[in-house]
């Protein structure tokens, strides 16, 4: 069982890899399409600016490729945002997997949101064994509004999608690799889905 982490120059790949190591899940960091296709699961990480990240995905010819993947795919933070239809950050189109337009927080809250916030009403396969109102670690200025794929809602001035799920595609706005024991349950659930 092997998880491939998409390597497109996006910041926190190391932390994700270490988190998988802690769960004894072998992983590789790659942007080779054959290796990605042969992996049991894919993690699509991301930290930084959406426009730069999309450019980098284009350079690696991954924009049309990622939505065609058939195995479980987990987008984290910016990775999840890029899986949406569009984002206000740089006013660009995303991969269009989730039917959501990513927006900037502007409801009188501190931006970026940095820290631990509660996930209410956790539904979906990533949150098996995760109690309602568990805390997750967030670092972001943009958010995906609640939509039909939302599997976890968090409130920050307004309710937003802390996680989404659609077919084999999953997204977490929070960082499971940094969300202590709760984050480990989420990653473990994802690994089990890849089996």
């Amino acid at each position, binding site marked *: 069982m092997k998880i491939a982490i998409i390597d497109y120059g996006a*910041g*926190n790949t*190391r*932390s994700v890899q*270490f*988190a998988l*190591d*802690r769960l004894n899940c072998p992983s590789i960091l790659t942007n080779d399409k054959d290796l990605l296709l042969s992996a049991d699961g894919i993690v699509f990480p991301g*930290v*930084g*600016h959406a426009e730069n990240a999309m450019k980098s995905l284009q350079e690696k010819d991954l924009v049309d490729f990622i939505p065609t993947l058939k195995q479980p795919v987990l987008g984290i933070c910016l990775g999840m945002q890029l899986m949406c239809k569009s984002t206000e950050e740089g006013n660009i189109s995303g991969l269009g997997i989730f039917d959501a337009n990513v927006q900037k927080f502007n409801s009188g*809250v*501190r*931006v*970026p*949101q*940095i*820290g*631990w*916030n*509660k996930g209410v009403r956790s539904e979906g396969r990533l949150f098996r064994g995760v109690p309602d109102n568990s*805390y997750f*670690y*967030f*670092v*972001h*200025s943009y958010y995906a509004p609640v939509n039909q794929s939302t599997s976890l809602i968090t*409130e*920050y001035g307004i309710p937003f999608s802390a996680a989404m799920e659609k077919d084999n595609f999953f997204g977490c706005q929070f*960082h499971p*690799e*940094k*969300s*202590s*024991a709760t*984050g*480990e349950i989420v990653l473990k659930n994802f690994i089990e889905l890849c089996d």
Partner: protein
Amino acid sequence: MLTKRIIPCLDIKDGRTVKGVNFTSLRDAGDPVELAKRYSEEGADELVFLDISATQDKRKTLLDTVTLVAKEVNIPFTVGGGISSVEDVGLLLKAGADKVSVNSAAVKDPDLINRLAKAFGNQCIVLAIDAKEIENRWMIHLAGGTVATSLDLFDWVKEGVDRGAGEILFTSMDNDGTKLGFANEQLAQLRAVVNVPIIASGGAGSIEDFRDAFLLGKCDAALAASVFHYGQIKIQDLKTQLANCDINVRI
């Protein structure tokens, strides 16, 4: 609702934690990894590592330490101390750091903040500031507080955020080491100046000091070293008591 954060700060020198860490149960109190794990298990929300080594191979040792911590610890951590270039930050983030803090280098070269925010996003750039009151004005100090500047605290914080800092770590040198509480008045004033999260530092001596920093200083996170290292305040007790004061914390 977003919770208030409690952040232990660890000074690192040549890959080892320094400054009176007093955990009797640890096999090796100088091991940053063991300490980080311990704090994480006790409920710390985040950690800050401040590298104070001055050796030639400082950078390599620090990168090794960062990787060792990132391998073992499942909460976020910030690394600071002598960071002065985009290259430095790129290497630290690659090694596994979640955020970096810049201090003196940003004062000497303010555009560094713009370059870092552009390269890595403002969410991982913490602007660390040491300031103290001189003739009724709060002035920025450099190099661990040893060098005074003519820069005003509030002007600099505003400029730093305009340039792309995603978070402010404000250490009041007047309060640091006193154990008489954080600089709540200045923290509340900073709150009115910028809209990014503010981490209070300097002066923690009691649980009430943390409560006041959140309620009076309106800060988003509070950082301390010795009260945690010497076991004077246990993070679990601290959080329980803060929750009793209706302060939203992760327990």
